[in-house]
């Protein structure tokens, strides 16, 4: 039974944990986390700083070796291997000496795709997804929102089924952020990627996701999985619906409880 579930999951974390040795003894950054995400889902992780969201991402991306547990992608053990998921950080990390087009093809280039072929593939996508006219500019000529678009397209063109997005819109103003959310949903719909999204913004998490995972600190852990059964495509007005607000309230309560217990623990 478990094996069947595992096979169905695109990305599965099995008892993944992380602890660091400190002078004061081992510090648990992440208590064992188990979760399974089916193909094509959009899920969000929310939680206070230090709840281990970025640790999970680094482990899944293979940039950090977990202290315990395994990561499975398509049912295959992928623990500690790099280049299997697209990973986007809050910083766009565009290379200033490359044009937008050449930044976007970076992932393909690392995979050994000839530059010319990679550019030919990327160009129509840049034009279709709002970077028309920016292809041959350098990143410093772009606004924050445009830079994030380029960074997201770079992640997308890396051609992995899974995209990890670590607060990609965290540094954007509210207006740009809401544009970018629509844009991301459009991309997600077009490419059928499995997306794991980290954010501090509860409303953003609910609006975008099929499921919201709420996390807590000390140690970083998953405390609740909240489904978002709101039909897609979603209109912006849905954020004011009773259903949406109920989910939001539940998330807020969980977060504030987690916050309180963390404070008590610290005291």
């Amino acid at each position, binding site marked *: 039974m478990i094996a069947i579930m595992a096979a169905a999951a695109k990305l599965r974390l099995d008892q993944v944990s992380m602890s660091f040795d400190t002078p004061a003894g081992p510090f648990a950054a992440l208590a064992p986390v188990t979760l399974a995400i089916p193909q094509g889902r959009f899920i969000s992780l929310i939680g206070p700083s230090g709840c281990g969201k970025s640790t999970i991402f*680094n482990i899944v*991306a*293979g*940039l950090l070796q977990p202290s315990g547990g395994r990561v499975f992608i398509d049912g295959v053990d992928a623990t500690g291997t*790099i*280049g*299997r*998921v*697209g*990973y986007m*950080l809050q*910083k766009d*990390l565009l*290379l200033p*000496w490359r044009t937008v087009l050449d930044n976007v093809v*970076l*992932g393909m*280039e*690392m*995979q050994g795709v000839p530059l010319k072929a990679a550019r030919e593939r990327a160009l129509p996508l840049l034009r279709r997804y709002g970077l028309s006219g920016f292809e041959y500019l*350098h990143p410093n000529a772009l606004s924050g929102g445009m830079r994030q678009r380029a960074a997201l397209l770079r992640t997308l063109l*890396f051609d992995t089924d899974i995209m990890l997005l670590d607060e990609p819109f965290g540094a954007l103003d509210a207006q740009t952020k809401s544009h970018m959310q629509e844009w991301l949903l459009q991309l997600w719909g077009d490419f059928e990627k499995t997306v794991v999204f980290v954010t501090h913004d509860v409303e953003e998490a609910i609006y975008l996701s099929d499921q919201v995972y709420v996390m807590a600190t000390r140690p970083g852990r998953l405390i609740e999985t909240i489904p978002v059964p709101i039909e897609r495509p979603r209109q912006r007005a849905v954020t004011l619906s009773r259903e949406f607000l109920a989910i939001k309230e539940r998330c807020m309560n969980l977060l504030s409880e987690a916050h309180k217990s963390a404070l008590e623990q610290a005291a």
Partner: protein
Amino acid sequence: MTAQDTSHAGAPLDLASPAAAPPAKEIRRLPVRKDWPLGFIIAIQVGILVVAVALWQAGADHGWIDGFFWSKPSDVYATLIKFFAGGDAWTDIEYTFGSTILGFFLGTAAGSLFGLSFWWSRNYAAVAQPYMICFHSLPKLALAPLVILIFGLGLASKVAIATALTIIVSALTTYAGVKALDADQERLFYSLGASRMQVFRKLVVPYCLPWIISVLRVNIGLALTGAIVGEFIASQHGLGRAILYAGNTYDIALVWVAALVLSTLAVLMYAAVSWLEHILRKGIKQ
């Protein structure tokens, strides 16, 4: 509305009344900077030169300064004509120029590669660090006599000194670039499945290029210093040797001539390197 109006109208009145008068505040304005026209600046620059040369000539002619030790512009000019007519001039210039350029390229290239190599291993960088700092703080010119003994009296010893002066500056500056590299940027490359070699070629080298370029102008000056010092110690050619020889034979006019030619050479090389830097920077942007 009315209440607001009165309070607004009242405020300046209160300030003006002698009872509530605060101590008078000194009125300050933004200092005005006025740029002279470029032609005016050049005229002043030329003027200073002309006046200095004229004073020098007059001083030597009227015995205000000792013409034997100071020489004078007319003698310097005559010697300059003789220096170039005699044929030694171009050999000397070529010699000094050659050792400077060779030392400059060798030192800059080797130093940059050395600095970049520290990216590959933090352990190796940690081991090399004290030696680098030691070699950097060491007055390398003090070792010049030793270099002459090892590399001989010819061009090789001058190139070696010029290289020694430039290599360490390039290495340290490039290493500063390596250290400034954003760890997240490297993580991005690895998350895309990049190999170490790919990260080095596509990230580390282009990232450090501005650092490497920024030392070019410093290095050309250092390389020239190294070449001249090498010639001072032992050489058969070069502008440095010409200056030393002229000084030893009390041919002060020739000292001035060689120094003049040397500064012209220095300015030309500096300009060429600035141009090279400009080209390289433009290349990076594209």
